[in-house]
């Protein structure tokens, strides 16, 4: 997505000229600027409420970046994504509470459980087309929630509460709201960066190939089912970490937090922001999670507005507000050596 100055002989006509604003938005430093802003905000406003809202938003960004791997990169419509967060939050909560451990030590278990969840949800869906896939993932999401509601190990309908904090060493408690906010922002930033980098690697390309044309990808030797499973697994792990942060933030986990609506909200963040473009998704997630807080009094109408927004965006801008632009630098370095028409018989 980052653009260099174009120095090739290639015609530029096919590429829309970048306005100063879009150049700013495409800037490599944008991520760092955003992170800096996120880190500076508490200096201006640090009420428990504002910290709480911003922490929630940051966790939501993490979820959206994880779902973006599944939906945006790999094109697998997942309507039950929140199930991965549920698995992460419950695993972390149950273990931390049972052994009275700081949440941070539950990370290995959460990774194992979410990878398993990714495999379990991913494996049966590999052969399915997108619309069937959507329903099956929705089904899995509901199954996860209902199961958590019915089992006693998950605390049944009241869930788990009184979950220990992330980590506490002497007087230094990561659970202190301001500290926790910074921890969350840094963790989320790391995951967003990791997801963005994955997107621009061999695996990330394979995801896009599968999204664009599965048969052609197969013909190139890409095992589409392995690649899809990888997308699920990464999505699941991202969701799992979201779950740990969620459990630490609320100190309680209950099934009501993992209803279909939540999955739909994360999906909206991804879709509105621009599927496949990590920056757009981050913006989308911030909008979706902060807007309702700003409009707290209008909460009755927010899902109506969201629903209409989804339709309008899809009809007029199906690729989202800030989609992946799909350009990359032309040849770097030795532009003189084009070997263009070599061997062409005239």
């Amino acid at each position, binding site marked *: 997505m980052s653009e260099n100055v174009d120095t*090739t002989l*290639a*015609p*530029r006509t*096919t*590429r829309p000229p970048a306005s100063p604003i879009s150049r700013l938005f495409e800037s490599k430093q944008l991520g760092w600027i955003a992170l800096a802003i996120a880190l500076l905000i508490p200096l201006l406003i640090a009420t428990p409420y504002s910290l709480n809202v911003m922490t929630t938003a940051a966790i939501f960004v993490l979820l959206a970046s994880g779902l973006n791997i599944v939906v945006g990169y790999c094109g697998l419509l997942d309507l039950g994504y929140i199930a991965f967060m549920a698995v992460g939050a419950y695993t972390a909560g149950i273990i931390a509470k049972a052994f009275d451990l700081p949440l941070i030590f539950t990370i290995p278990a959460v990774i194992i459980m979410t990878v398993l969840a990714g495999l379990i949800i991913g494996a049966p869906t590999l052969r399915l087309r997108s619309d069937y896939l959507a329903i099956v993932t929705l089904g899995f999401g509901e199954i996860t929630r209902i199961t958590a509601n019915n089992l006693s190990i998950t605390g049944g309908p009241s869930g788990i509460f009184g979950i220990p904090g992330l980590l506490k060493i002497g007087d230094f408690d990561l659970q202190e709201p301001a500290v926790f906010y910074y921890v969350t922002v840094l963790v989320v930033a790391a995951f967003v960066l*990791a997801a963005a*980098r*994955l997107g*621009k*690697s*061999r*695996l*990330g*390309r*394979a995801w*896009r*190939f599968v999204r*664009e*044309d599965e*048969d*052609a*990808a*197969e*013909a*190139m*030797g*890409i*095992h*589409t089912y392995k690649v899809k499973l*990888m997308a699920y697994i*990464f999505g699941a792990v991202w969701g799992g970490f979201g779950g740990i942060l969620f459990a630490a933030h609320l100190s309680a986990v209950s099934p009501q937090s993992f209803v279909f609506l939540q999955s739909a909200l994360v999906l909206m963040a991804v879709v509105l922001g621009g599927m496949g473009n990590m920056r757009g998704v981050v913006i989308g997630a911030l909008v979706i999670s902060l807007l309702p807080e700003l409009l707290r009094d209008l909460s009755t109408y927010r899902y109506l507005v969201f629903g209409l927004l989804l339709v309008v965006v899809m009809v007029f801008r199906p690729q989202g507000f800030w989609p*992946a632009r*799909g*350009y*990359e*630098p*032309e*040849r*770097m370095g030795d532009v003189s050596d*084009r*070997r*263009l*028409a*070599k*061997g*062409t*018989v*005239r």
Partner: protein
Amino acid sequence: MTVVLEVKNLQIAFGGVKAVDGLSFSVDAKEIIAVIGPNGAGKTSAFNCITGFYKPSSGAVLLYGQNITGKRPADIAAAGVSRTFQNLRLFPDLTVLDNVRAGMHLYGGQNWLDAILHTPRFKRSEAAYTEEAHHWLDFVGYSGARGVPIRNLSYGQQKHVEIARALARKSGLLLLDEPAAGLNYTEKRDLLDLCQRIRELGTAIVLIEHDMGLVMELSERIVVMNFGKEIADGTPAEVKANPAVIEAYLGKDDDEEVSARGDA
């Protein structure tokens, strides 16, 4: 000469219709073979059987003597078969370079951890991917912009990219499905030349083609199919003289006949 591909009595049926009914031929290294026949003769179905997209009802496909019948397309591709599609199957939203990189997926050279951490290994491998992608685009004589999405390209350019992608797979066998369709005279001459250069790389080519002039000039052997059955297999001269082939083409009232005469 090593035998690259051997197709033995291949059959596939959809419902009651036998799309391919007893196709057998073999391909030697560096050989160029054409599969021709009227529309609906089962040529593309045969390709799909060979590359694993269809599971043949019976018969066998051997690659370098190894049985690859009924394997997954990805496994067959990994074993050394690359292909193009009848109607371009590129990745329309991805850049030209990314499309060619698809052919290089099996090169490996990095894993997900490298990607997240941006290790030197990752950077090396990405640079190698890019360089190689440029190389193959140069090789097929692609002259357009390379950092733009495929959508923005002309049909001819897209054809080039698809061949570059297939070549980047670096396999011993290349299946081209109607590579000349929609190309003008100069472009066809370029294609002819390209195929010769591909052969020089050590790659055998099997192509489905309707342009008889191209087929006659390019291929060493020709397999003729009609209604799923193989009706001839021989050198261009032999096939041209084969009464069954003539009947298949002249007996039918379609454009095959016209192009066969016009371009021969």
